[in-house]
């Protein structure tokens, strides 16, 4: 058992540094995912058929390209095309835009989860359409999507491991664990601590989303 903890304490710089890189990476990507995801969801439920198609095109593109391909294209591809993008920008943008496609789909389904009858009732009671959206539809939609957004966030944190494994090669949790593994030859120990690192981040995300759910829960 002590061998396990020795690997952690003797390589705390690598593990800590990796955790910090992954935390910044998923933090940045989360912001992009929520902003872009909301925007795309708005396009998808909007009144114009062309905007809806544009939103659909975004979702299908980013949801159907493997993240590793996206990372390689956004870094090596853009650099070769003459745009000297730096590793962090490529990594955060890829992970964020990829996740945004899933966020958009969840938000859209949340809006559609509010029954049409409620909207008709609201309109017939004299609420305007924007009022109906703001007071009836969105509050319920928001509550509905908290749990799936939590799942997406957790998936994104785990997906971030692909960044370190890609050609971008940022020193994230997994990459640094592999560096420790190659320095010490302690394979199980290194990867157990990598797992613990991801668990720490996903655990924190789980906690935040559980609090949000409790805060905004409605008894049905």
């Amino acid at each position, binding site marked *: 058992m002590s061998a396990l903890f020795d690997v952690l304490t003797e390589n705390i710089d690598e593990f800590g540094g990796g955790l910090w890189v992954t935390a910044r990476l998923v933090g940045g990507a989360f912001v992009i995912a929520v902003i872009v995801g909301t925007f795309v969801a708005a396009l998808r439920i909007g009144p114009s058929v062309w905007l809806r198609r544009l939103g659909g095109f975004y979702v299908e593109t980013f949801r159907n390209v493997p993240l590793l391909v996206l990372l390689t294209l956004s*870094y*090596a591809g853009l*650099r*070769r095309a003459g745009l*000297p993008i730096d*590793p962090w920008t490529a990594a955060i943008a890829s992970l964020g835009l990829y996740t945004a496609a899933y966020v958009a789909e969840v938000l859209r389904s949340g809006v559609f989860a509010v029954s049409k009858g409620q909207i008709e009732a609201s309109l017939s009671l004299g609420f305007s359409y924007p009022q109906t959206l703001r007071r009836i539809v969105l509050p319920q939609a928001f509550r509905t999507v908290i749990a799936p957004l939590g799942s997406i966030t957790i998936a994104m944190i785990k997906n971030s491991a692909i960044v370190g*494994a890609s*050609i971008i*090669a940022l*020193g994230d949790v997994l*990459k640094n664990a*592999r*560096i420790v*593994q*190659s*320095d010490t*030859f302690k*394979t199980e120990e290194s990867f157990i601590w990598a797992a613990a690192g991801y668990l720490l981040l996903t655990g924190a995300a789980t906690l935040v989303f559980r609090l949000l759910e409790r805060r905004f829960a409605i008894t049905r």
Partner: protein
Amino acid sequence: MQTMRWRWLAALVLALGVLAVGACGDDEDSGSGDAGTTSTAAPTFAAGTTMKKLQDAGEITIGVKYDAAPFGVKNPTSGEVEGFDVDLGKAIADELGVKAKFIEALSDNRIPFLKDGTTDLILSTMTITAERDEEIDFSEPYYVAKGRILVKKSDNDIKDVADLAGKKVCTALGSTYEETLKKQAPKAKLSLVDGYSECLELIQNGGVDAESTDDVILTGHIIQDDSLKLVGDELTQEPYGAGIKQGDKAFKDFVDGVIAKYKSDGRWATAYEKWVGQYTGEDQKPPTMTLQEALDLSK
């Protein structure tokens, strides 16, 4: 009736899953099919030895690089892996009278592969070091490479290892250069990737300023892209050894025997000329460095 249909569907999905897993079992075979056919009377070995086990199995699994031309590289045309390491692997398989099966071993996973039995032998441009010798056993050195630095021809800033300070330098995760660079160029920013093909991509797209690894691998890059050049003096000497599971003395002696024969009967020189000499224009004799000297070098 509705639930029955669901059960059929679930069973079908499971069955397909099982089939898929079964099919995955043997499609790793990327090695040469002809390796075992050339040998005639293979020697017999005592029961319980690794050699006997391999002969019973009819094949030896050897971990090689797929992206380290000219030692181990997957030929895009034939789909077969080839190179100096691959030829030596075939020679060892021939001596046993078995088929050589080559799988990809990265700098980062080759020692775990050997420990967990995924491969029986490692021939992947692996430098003999005292640190690695704690984990696995090495054969006698079969090649001595030299550590160098590769930059773009247009780069006039980097002339030697001292100029790497503040520059981005690529090498493979788990290679000896990870440590060499940390020691000789502590201020360099390291990009640690899985294989040297990624370093080549990074140096070409400007993601890194330089790459450091064995001269033979860097020469392979220059063959692919002549806008690159080698700079500076030798950083290190890198004696390559075959990786053998820790404590398997009999198998180590066997591999050492094959390597000694390979060096003395002219096959080494043929392989050298075929894979290295014709590109570098340098003549080289089989290495005379011993395993002990190689280990001392790394201390």
